[in-house]
Structures are given as structure tokens and as C-alpha cells.
């Protein structure tokens, strides 16, 4: 410890109460930074998780090309008139006829963590006299479960019952309610082609997205293929999950090389999720930075007071041969110490607050407690931002201290 640091230490420890107030303002600022960011990240994660319970990172499906070549072309000469009545774009193919090939091809891409096929169609479900439309999904239970943790959302029954019985069906809780159907009840499904089959309810599912829960019905993909009389490799969509959902765009463009079907990363058509996440992050940072800046003003104030209080000491030090740089060092060291102590205690306090919030009951949708995230990055950033602001707040008073004219003070 050099002389300047020793002087800084004595000056700092001689006024414990002021030191405490200064440290506490940093502690508070940094803990709020940690809390705000952890909370927002938690909300974002929760949002994303809910989103991805029913939505894959990348979806491959058959879509009409955006550019449709018109049947009518311009007349060859002015004498001729070409007429086409009832012009229509006709979809020659529906769904993906040979989904197995796509699955095989893209499973070589490393960042892909899971692939599942789905066969989705709108159907009518009837239970006695109640009839309602529904979204029937034929799923590959094992893969689906791996991608979406579907079995976690089953309130009753077992997802894998779909495999053992070809007439098993799982209904969304909302759908079951509107049908008045419960476990073990028989419901009949009618396709748009007029085929009707009876299924038995073996499970109920609730994902928290109530829109989906009101229309969702799940059968095994084999049962669905049978129902719609399509071939064994048929699927309406191939869903892909990757290791980091933020890279969906890049991986999607990679998949495009293997197939001509439409490859859609989740951000397309879900811009609102993307922007909501970004906005929440901005709010969190804005609020926490504001708190840190206020804490910075607190330190600025306290250090200014200290400089004024110690102006005689500064004059003596200068008379004894301490130069401006020494004085800056003496006072800046005090701010740095305040910043470091406040920073470290702030991280701990922040962590404690986050843990408490993590236990606050919040029973809405699938949540049980308020969502938070424990990300070391938030802690590192909070610490850096906090110490940086203390440094800035401490520098100005220190600079003022270095400009003290000893003659003026010592002559009195």
C-alpha cells in the first residue's frame, strides 16, 4: 500500500457513517440492476418457453410459391383476345409427401437438436350433440415430447398411450370443456373429406396458451395418416429445434439447401415476440442504469462534501509536497473502494432479492412463482457499470480537490 492509498484509507475510515451511506447507495444501485435484469430475463425466458411449447424454432412446410405465374400471357397481336374464365391458382400438392427424406437430409446439420413430423388438419369433433371445430395434430410422440416437453403439460393421462392405441386422442383442456368430454369419453372426428372415426380421450393437455388449448386435439401421426388416407411418409410440416433459438434464421437458410419446401424460422411471423423481448431488455437496462446514475450522484455528492471538509488537509498535503496527481489518487482511491465494496455487496443483495422474487407466488397460466433468471452475465455487467459510474462520480470531486490552492487555505 503506497502513501497515497494509506492516506485514502485513513480519510475513508475516519468517517464510517458517510462511508456507509456512500457504499449503500452503490449497493442499492447494483442490486437493482441485478434484480431488474434477472427479472426481465426471467420473463423473457418464460415467454420464450411458453412460445416454444407449441412452436418449433424452424418449420418446414408446403406453401404456394409467392410468385405465381399467371396462366394468361399477353396477346400475341392486337387482333387476338385471350380469355381465361375462372382463373385460379391450383395447389397440386398438399403437405410434404416424403418427409422422411427431408428428416434424413437435415439431421446431418450439427446445430439441430431435434426433428419431428406433424400432420395437422382442421377437423370437426363431436361429442353427442356438441360439435366444434378443432386442430387435429398427428404427432410422433417420442420426438414431439423431446422438442416440446409435451408430456409435462398433460394434466391427465399419458402421452405415450397414443402409441399403444390407434384410437387414442388427447384434447386441450379448453376443447374438452367446450365438448363436455372427459377422460375415457368417446368423441368422433370428421375430416373435411367426410371421413368419421371414433376416438377415446386418454389425456388432457394445458399449455397456458389458451387459444391453442381450446382447439387442440392430438393423435399419433400413424392414426392421423390413416384418418386422412395419406402415405406413410406424409406430414404437413417438419418441425426443427436447434441448440440456440436465436440462430434460427441462419440454420433456416442452411436447411433451404436441402429442400424446396418453405423453411420458416420462428421470428418470421412472430415479430411481436422478438420485439417484446428486445423492448423488455431495453426497459430493464434503462431503469437499472437510471438507478445506477442516481447512485452515482449520491457518491458525487458525498465525495464533494468530503473534499470540502478535508480542504485544509489537502492544503497541508500540498504544502508538504504532494502534487495534484497525488491528491486525485487519494480521493479517487476512496471512490474506487466505495465502488468495490458497494459493488460486491450489491451483487449479493441483488442475488438475495432475486431469490426472494423467485419464491413470490404468481399463479397465472403455467407459472407458479415470478420468473427470474440467474445469468452470470447480468452480475458481471452490473458490477462493471456500477464501478464505472462510481469512478466517474468520484473523479470530478477528486479533480476539484487537486485544484485546491494551498496558499488561500493556509493563510485563512
Amino acid at each position, binding site marked *: 500500500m503506497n*502513501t497515497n492509498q494509506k492516506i485514502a484509507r485513513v480519510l475513508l475510515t475516519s468517517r464510517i457513517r458517510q462511508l456507509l451511506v456512500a457504499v449503500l447507495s452503490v449497493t442499492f444501485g447494483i442490486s437493482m440492476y441485478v434484480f431488474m435484469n434477472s427479472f426481465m430475463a426471467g420473463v423473457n425466458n418464460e415467454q420464450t418457453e411458453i412460445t416454444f411449447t407449441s412452436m418449433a424454432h424452424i418449420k418446414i412446410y408446403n406453401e404456394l410459391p409467392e410468385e405465381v405465374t399467371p396462366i394468361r400471357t399477353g396477346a400475341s397481336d392486337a387482333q387476338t383476345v385471350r380469355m381465361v374464365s375462372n382463373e385460379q391458382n391450383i395447389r397440386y400438392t398438399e403437405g410434404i409427401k416424403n418427409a422422411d427424406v427431408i428428416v434424413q437430409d437435415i439431421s446431418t446439420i450439427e446445430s439441430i437438436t431435434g426433428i419431428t413430423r406433424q400432420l395437422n388438419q382442421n377437423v370437426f369433433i363431436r361429442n353427442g350433440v356438441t360439435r366444434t371445430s378443432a386442430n387435429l395434430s398427428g404427432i410422433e410422440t417420442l420426438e414431439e415430447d423431446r422438442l416440446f416437453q409435451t408430456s409435462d403439460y398433460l394434466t391427465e393421462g399419458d402421452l405415450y398411450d397414443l402409441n399403444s392405441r390407434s384410437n387414442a386422442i388427447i384434447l386441450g383442456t379448453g376443447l374438452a370443456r367446450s365438448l363436455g368430454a372427459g377422460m375415457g369419453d368417446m368423441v368422433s372426428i370428421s375430416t373435411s373429406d367426410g371421413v368419421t372415426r371414433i376416438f377415446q380421450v386418454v389425456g388432457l393437455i394445458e399449455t397456458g396458451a389458451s387459444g391453442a388449448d381450446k382447439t387442440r386435439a392430438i393423435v399419433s401421426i400413424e392414426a392421423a395418416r390413416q384418418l386422412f388416407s395419406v402415405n406413410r411418409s406424409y406430414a404437413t410440416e417438419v418441425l426443427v429445434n436447434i441448440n440456440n433459438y436465436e440462430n434460427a434464421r441462419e440454420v433456416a437458410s442452411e436447411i433451404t439447401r436441402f429442400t424446396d419446401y418453405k423453411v420458416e424460422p420462428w421470428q418470421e411471423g412472430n415479430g411481436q415476440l422478438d420485439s417484446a423481448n428486445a423492448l423488455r431488455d431495453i426497459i430493464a437496462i434503462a431503469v437499472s442504469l437510471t438507478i445506477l446514475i442516481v447512485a452515482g450522484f449520491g457518491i458525487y455528492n458525498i465525495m464533494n462534501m468530503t473534499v470540502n471538509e478535508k480542504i485544509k*488537509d489537502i492544503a497541508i498535503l500540498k*504544502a508538504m*509536497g504532494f502534487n495534484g496527481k497525488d491528491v486525485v489518487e487519494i480521493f479517487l482511491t476512496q471512490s474506487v473502494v466505495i465502488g468495490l465494496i458497494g459493488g460486491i455487496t450489491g451483487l449479493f443483495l441483488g442475488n438475495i432479492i432475486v431469490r426472494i422474487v423467485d419464491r413470490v407466488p404468481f399463479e397465472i397460466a403455467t407459472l407458479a412463482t415470478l420468473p427470474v433468471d440467474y445469468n452470470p452475465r447480468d452480475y458481471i455487467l452490473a458490477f462493471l457499470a456500477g464501478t464505472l459510474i462510481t469512478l466517474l462520480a468520484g473523479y470530478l470531486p477528486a479533480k476539484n480537490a487537486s485544484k485546491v490552492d494551498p496558499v488561500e487555505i*493556509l493563510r485563512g
Partner: protein
Amino acid sequence: MNALSVYNVNKYFEEPVHFQVLKNISFNIHKGEFVSIIGKSGSGKSTLLYLLSTMDTDYEGSISINGEQVTGLKQNQLATFRNEHIGFVFQFHFLLPEFSVLDNVMIPALKLNQRTKDEIEDMALELLGLLDMKGEEKKKASKISGGQQQRVAIARALINSPAIIMGDEPTGNLDSKNSKIVFDIFRQLAREKGQTIIAVTHDEEFAVNCDRIIELSDGRLVDSI
């Protein structure tokens, strides 16, 4: 060799009105001389001392200390120069109140950083012993009496063995007994260690016992006796 030469120094105050405090001051002080600067209030003697101390740099003319011209040096160079060559004793002792007596004495030497901490501590203890302050080293500077504080300030002024010791009314705040002690210490330092002493004083007795008196009147040098 002159410990101090002042050549043609003029000093003005701009506040509250333009005013010439020092008028064409020139004099030399030899090494080992014990000099008093006297004069009535407002004669400019304290102002002169602060010019000599290198802390006030706003003047015309030139000042050399130990053969080195200090006029025109930068603030940081002057700080280093003061640290090494000048010791101060002020009227109101001006110790750092939060530090111990020993720390107060050691700080200028720690700043100079030419000796180890242990050597400095030994020197400081020796100086305090010399000034009859044994046993008070660990006390806080704010917890000792005025006379003791002034002795600590003198020990602090001596720690770097400066060529010149400057005092701004070093006995101004002390009773006659303590004044005598301080004077005797100065006398002894000038005589035995060859250190130059310059003290601004109101104290007649103090002044007449010096080697030389420099008297100021209305900013002019009256006589060097």
C-alpha cells in the same frame, strides 16, 4: 552559497481592488542563517513567505532556493521541490487530525520515498524524542495539546532534512514557555545542522534573538539589520 535569493520581486493583489503588496523586494539569505521577517499587519510579510515557499507562483521577479531558480517551474515540479527542500511550520500547527502523531511526521518522508518505511519510522521516532514528544507517538494528532502539536509540526518539517525551514508565526499560538522551546529548537537546528530558518513573526523577543531581521513596511524592505 546563498540558501535563498530574492531578486526584484513584485506582487499584486487583484481582489478586491488592484493593489501592489510587495514592491521591488531583493535580498539574500545565507545557508545556516536564522532570519525573522517582521512588519505590521498588511505589510506583506506573510505574502512574501508564501512566495518563498513556492506555493504562490503569481509574482514578478525571481526567487532561487539552494542555487536553483524556482520561478517558472511547473506546479508538480514545485511540489516535488517543496517535499525535498522545504519544511513548513504554520501558526495553527495544521496537522492531519485523523492520523497519529507518528504518521503525521512520517508522511512527507513516505512521499519523498528515498528511504524504507522502517528507516523513516526510526527517524521520526528520533525526531519526536528530540522534541520531547516521546510516548505520544501513537496518539491521534487531534488529541494532543497545542504546544505538543506545534512540536509535532516541527518534527514533520524536519523529517526530510530540508535546506530551509519556513515558519508562518510558528510561535504565534503558543504561550511563552512553549514559544521558548520552539525558538530554542530553531536556534539549535540553524547552529548545529546548518539548516536555514525563515520565520514570519510578531514576537519581538523571538525576532531580536535571530541572526537577522528583515523588516517590511507597506510592501518595501526597510532594513536588513
